[in-house]
Structures are given as C-alpha cells and as structure tokens.
C-alpha cells in the first residue's frame, strides 16, 4: 500500500501488561484512508488493547505506529496530544461527561485546539459551534443541544459520543465496541451513522465488535484476531465457518 492512501500503519506492535505475557504479539497491519474495518475476535484477545495503543491511551511495549507521516509510538507531551487530536475515539460506555450539556460534550472534541482560558469561559470559535449544531442534526439530536448528557438514553449518548469524535475533524476514527451496550435495532442505527459519517467526512473507521453479522453487514474489511495475533484479514465474504473456527476456536457455538 502506498503512503498516500494509508491512514495508519502498525508495525510489529507488542504489548505486555505483565512482563513476558504478550497481549499483542507483533501486530503488523495497514489501514487505508477510507472505509470501515471491523476487528473481531474472542474476549481478551487484545482488540481493545490494539485500538488503545493506537491513540496511546495504552503504552505500547514495542513496535511502531505510523500515523500522519510519523511514528507516534514514542511521542510524549505536546507532540502526543497533537497526534491524539487527529484520532477520534468512540467508547463502549459512551464516556460522555455526564454533567455537561450535549453541546459542551460535542465542543469538548475541540479541546485539543482550544486554550484553557477560552475553554473555561466556553468561548469556542463560532465555526466549531456551527459545526456542532450541524453534526447534532446529522446524528438526529438536533433539539438536544442543551440537555444534560445524563438525561439521554444509551443510543442517544452514543450518537453524542460519535459526534464528539467527529468534531475533532479526525483523520482516523476508532470505536471500541460502540454497540455492545445497545439493543439490536439501535446497534444497526449506530453502525449506520458511523459508516455514513466516515464516508461523508472522509474518515477511515476501525471498529472493535463482537457481533459478526453486524460486522459483515457494515464493514468493508474484517480483521480477525486470536491470541494477540491477526488470523484473518479480508473481505466480509471470506468469513467462512472455517475462518470463524480459527478466530474463535471450537465449533459447537456455530449454529447449523
């Protein structure tokens, strides 16, 4: 893959929380500058660890993470924050600031660009505020700007979570099981929003998920992980029962 069309390039990524126990065992993978990739795999296989290493919420033990034309694995301080603000993240439990309004939660996506005294006074550029209202409309929460986040349902919260991440104008969107706490219908809506916003704003999206059917339905590419390694990487069609057996192990769970 050439550099221009690659958003993220992970090289030999290793993570050990406990010395000698490799949770990520030398992950090497590229992600294109567009499209939605789903990462699937059994619980505890390191999917969250992989995503969280990319935006450095977790410190990688070894390896490189090429993003935005540089290796961001060794960055610290300001340089790290500047890399982070170009990577949006959506969380399983939404992680909204509960006591702030929906609008403030969206604007918090701009904090990487806002000096502290302006953030304190809530003086965000008009451009950011306009964009926040437009995004709220897009995720279907146009009339919720002044609601406090803790007054929203799970599905509404996740819409705010996505809008907050897109507010960053990120060059990459990470989502760690964004639908695992939601009902099936809402899950489909949330995946739809992520795919559509990703397309519209030209943001590549990487989603960790457990629901294989949902992954097949929305992803352009599936990455299967097992034991801290990548064991499948290809189109959704390629996910045969055999492949699923390699990813998840066993076969008794495969119906018919």
């Amino acid at each position: 893959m050439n550099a221009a069309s690659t958003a993220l390039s992970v090289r030999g990524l290793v993570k050990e929380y406990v010395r000698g126990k490799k949770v990520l065992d030398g992950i090497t993978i590229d992600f294109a500058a567009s499209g939605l990739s789903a990462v699937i795999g059994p619980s505890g296989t390191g999917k969250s660890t992989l995503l969280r290493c990319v935006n450095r919420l977790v410190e990688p033990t070894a390896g490189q993470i090429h993003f935005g034309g540089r290796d961001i694995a060794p960055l610290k301080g300001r340089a790290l924050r500047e890399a982070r603000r170009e990577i949006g993240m959506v969380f399983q439990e939404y992680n909204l600031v509960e006591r702030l309004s929906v609008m403030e939660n969206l604007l918090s996506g701009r904090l990487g660009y806002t000096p502290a005294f302006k953030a304190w006074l809530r003086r965000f550029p008009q451009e950011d505020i306009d964009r926040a209202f437009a995004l709220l409309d897009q995720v279907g929460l146009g009339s919720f700007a002044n609601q406090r986040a803790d007054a929203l349902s799970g599905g509404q919260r996740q819409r705010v979570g996505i809008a907050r991440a897109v507010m960053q104008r990120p060059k990459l969107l990470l989502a760690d099981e964004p639908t695992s706490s939601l009902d099936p219908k809402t899950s489909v809506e949330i995946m739809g929003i992520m795919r559509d916003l990703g397309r519209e704003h030209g943001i590549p999206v990487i989603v960790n998920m457990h629901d294989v059917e949902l992954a097949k339905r929305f992803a352009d590419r599936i990455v299967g992980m097992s034991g801290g390694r990548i064991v499948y990487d290809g189109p959704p069609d390629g996910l045969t029962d055999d492949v699923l057996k390699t990813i998840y192990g066993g076969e008794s769970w495969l119906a018919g």
Partner: protein
Amino acid sequence: MIYALGRLDFSWDRFVTGLDNGARFIGRMLPPRIAQPDSLAKGLIESLEIAILASSMGILLSLPIGLFAARNLMPVWATWPARAIIAAARSFHPVIVAIIFVKAVGFGALAGICALVVASIGFIGKLFAEAIEEISLKQVEAVRATGASFMNVILFGVLPQVFGRFIGFATYQLDSNLRNSTMVGIVGAGGIGGTLFSAFQRFDYDFVAAILLSIIAMIMAGEVLATWVRGVFLEKGKVDGE
C-alpha cells in the same frame, strides 16, 4: 470512665455549685448592654474580614493542593507532598495554629487569617482530594483522548464531576471559618474574640451577653450568605458547570 471522672475531680457537689455559679453568671448578663459599641463593631467587622479573606485564600490554595493530592490523577511525586501539607494543616486546632502565628507575625488579624487559611487547607484540601478520587475516570479518559491539554482535561473532564460538591465544601468552610474567627481573638489573633475576652476579664458580663448575641446574629447571617452562594453557583452550574 469512672477513673477519668475521678482524675478530673468531678463530683456531684462541684456540679451543683457549678450550676449555681452559672445561674448567678446568667443573672449578671441580663439585660445585655452594649458598653462599647465601637469595639463591638470593630471586632465583628474584623472577624468577618478574617473569615472571608481566610476562606477565599484557603479555597484558592486548596484547589491545587487537593488536585495534586488526588491519587487517581497524579503521580506519587505530586500526591506525597500535597498529602503531607494537608496532614500538617490538619494536625492542630485552629486556636493552636493561631497562637503560633501570633508569635510569628504578631498580634492582630493577620495571624487570625493565616491560622484559618491553614485550617481551611487541612479541611477542604482533603475533601477536594477525596471528591476527585471518586470521579469516573472514563469521562476523563474520553476528554484526554481528544488531545486536550492537562488544564483542559481538568476543566472539562474533572471539574464538572466535582463542581457541586466543591461548592458545598467551600460554603461549609466559610461557615466554619466564621465560627472560628470569633475564637482566634482570644489568643490575640484579631476579631471579636479579643473584645469578648477583655469584657470577660473586666467582669463586664452584660457586655459579654451583648457580644455573644451579636456573634449568634453574625453566624446566622453567615448561614444565609452560604445558602445564597450555594444557590447562585449551583443554579449557574446547571447550565455550564455542575
């Protein structure tokens, strides 16, 4: 307990005599009389000043100290000194601290202010730190993931979660400083306590009564003020803070 009572030379006789003395004492306090309106007013105003200045400075200093003492956000090199400061500030009763400051900076309100600043740090610094240690780190992490600076993470990820409780602690401390500001005067650290003490020494009990009544009035006014402050901030908080 019986041993303690024995040691303290507590006996029914003394208790009855005490009641008797008390009754005579109260008799001499009535009716209250404002013997020296000037020194009463001066003492009250000085107490009020001590309480307000000490509360504002104490709260301002407690914010960073409490933040640094929070073990969920700060590394050990920051929490350790901050916790040591809080522990030291809590060690002594404000009156003892006031005595030390009277020795250090001389008689007067400055000593009282210093003493109550120390008391405030010891009390709300600790409460601030505990409130911060109970916040949800998920919210903080989400703000950090946007590339926000440390200050912005505090402003958007931490402060909204603790703002309401901070206001509660701060107004409580104002209340408590108001009470203590009437006491530090007894050791010469300024305020109405000094006036009270000298009235006592002159056996000027009707003036003592007048002073005590005005202290009660001041504490009640303080209570009203504290409620008002809470109202203002928590109302505002609904929009952008709490």
